[in-house]
């Protein structure tokens, strides 16, 4: 309606500006009405708790204060100081970082290999392979963790398989040195699919002309892979590293179901530690732990986003 209302009157300067600003205001109002339900839910259930968690981490809030969350004592950085003196927390950080540092490259590497093989190496049954490799992604980690727990039993499927080759497998989940590797193996198994799909999409964008030009210039396959395919896929690889890293830093379901953080805290992750402290009623302390994890995620993401933008 308003769009039609532009009159044929002699254009005096101030007039259109007034009208357009009124229209702007109307537009702003309409737009905020569209955004309102989201914004309200967002403030109450996302932004609020994010800020709340931060503030809470500087208090001594426990279960006792559940009904009166605004009457807690402020203790400054005490929770953070305590965290970094707690060997279990430090162990959980170490476990989490070990997990990320080993599992991310493994996931990315294997996903890249599968994506390349699917993209170039074969012609038939691609859908079958794609569906198969992607299937673990859509399934509940909890359910899958339970199945894997049985697979990794001392007399389970994996050791049965190894026995065929005369290898005596360990008691995967009960061994302090094998428990974390077991969870890494499972996490890689589960996440290859996501990254493979992203890489398959990215491979579509690698210009064939470049490969052809390089071939004319006599570049061999390795040179072309290294100098054309990889650079073209760099944004996708870095992006995948970021999202896999963020996901793996939050590592929780697998230790919860498979090992309860054990044996001897060998699989205790920071998310699991946070949940434990919450269970003990140490709300403020749990919040502080979660913020340390959050900070790690932010730092990791910033570093990687910087890498992306530098290459552009």
């Amino acid at each position: 309606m308003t769009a039609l209302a532009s009159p044929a009157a002699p254009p005096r300067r101030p007039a259109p500006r007034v009208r357009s600003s009124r229209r702007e205001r109307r537009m702003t109002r309409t737009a905020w009405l569209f955004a309102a339900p989201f914004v309200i839910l967002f403030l109450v259930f996302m932004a609020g708790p994010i800020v709340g968690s931060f503030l809470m981490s500087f208090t001594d809030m426990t279960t006792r204060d559940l009904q009166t969350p605004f009457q807690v004592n402020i203790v400054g950085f005490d929770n953070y100081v305590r965290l970094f003196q707690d060997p279990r927390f430090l162990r959980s950080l170490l476990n989490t970082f070990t997990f990320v540092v080993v599992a991310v490259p493994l996931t990315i590497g294997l996903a890249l290999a599968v994506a390349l093989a699917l993209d170039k190496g074969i012609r038939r049954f691609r859908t079958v392979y794609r569906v198969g490799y992607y299937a673990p992604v859509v399934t509940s980690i909890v359910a899958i963790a339970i199945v894997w727990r049985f697979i990794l039993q001392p007399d389970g499927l994996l050791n049965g398989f190894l026995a065929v080759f005369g290898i005596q497998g360990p008691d995967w989940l009960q061994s302090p040195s094998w428990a974390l590797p077991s969870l890494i193996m499972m996490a890689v198994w589960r996440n290859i699919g996501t990254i493979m799909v992203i890489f398959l999409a990215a491979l579509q964008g690698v210009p064939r002309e470049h490969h052809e030009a390089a071939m004319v210039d006599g570049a061999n396959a390795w040179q072309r892979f290294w100098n054309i395919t990889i650079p073209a896929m760099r944004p996708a690889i870095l992006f995948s590293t970021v999202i896999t890293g963020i996901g793996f830093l939050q590592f929780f379901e697998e230790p919860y179901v498979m090992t309860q953080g054990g044996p001897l805290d060998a699989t205790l992750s920071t998310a699991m530690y946070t949940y434990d402290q919450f269970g003990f009623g140490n709300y403020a302390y749990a919040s502080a732990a979660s913020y340390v994890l959050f900070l790690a995620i932010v730092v990791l993401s910033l570093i990687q986003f910087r890498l992306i933008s530098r290459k552009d």
Partner: protein
Amino acid sequence: MTTTPASPAEAERLGPVLASASVTDTDVVEPELHPAGRRRRRERPRWWLYIVLTLGLIAMIMPFVWMILGSFKSDAEIRQNPTGFLPQDPTVENYETLFGRLDFTTFFVNSLVVAVFVTLGNIVFCSMIGYALAKLQFRGKKLLFGLVLGTLMVPGVVTFVPLFVLTANLGLVNSYPGLILPFLISPLGVFLMRQFMLSLPDELIEAARIDGASEWRIFLRVIMPMCGPAVATLTILTFLGSWNNFLWPLVVATKEDMYTLPVALALYSVSQNAAKYGLMMAGAVVVVLPILLVFVFLQRYFVQGIALTGIK
């Protein structure tokens, strides 16, 4: 690191693929250099790639096969032959216990109710704000979008403590609203809808405005009917996310009749039921199979969804 031993099995299995990734192009790249041949596959498929990919595929789906077959075995049979595949004497006794004594029907219904409402909420609210962010000009737009994107990085573990305090004070612990409300919106949903709507032509909106349609009418009659693919993707991803969600339901559903499937399964699996392989397998089947079946039929959309949200 003690973690590396996890990789040999993986590396052995897929190592050849990794190696092949770099060599795929070698001799196969026959000089199909004519521009016309550009879209044609230059590679000749290789049988050994099929073998390696198939071995990988077996590793990916073997746990599912074993899970489904295991769910039809009796405890006695599993104890006798823990690594067996085919059930000697198939029985549905595990499922009877699950739905009879353990009341998985309730958990199934809980999961379904939560997932349906969460999905509906996301479709409605994320589309609305998506329209405002994509097609309307208003003050505060950049800030709003920035805030929403910023929360994409925040892990659930950061918000769950204050969210629990809030939920408890609202009296919503152990209730559907308590399970649903925090997930009615998602930053990813906003991002997805906005990106899709940006690609719709402005001319259609302008034309509708000139015809005197209000923004609401434009949204409902012009924009939403064109958003089919985006809504489909959002539906799949949200439903899947809700169905598999674990941490929040674990925190907020403390009474048995409010458990969702993953929570029930996880809690039973760390209780005295833990040793009952067959029963736990059947539970895992109930959690995983509905999604897996939907996935097999709609896999194209799942994969598109990941690719779409993955690299825009």
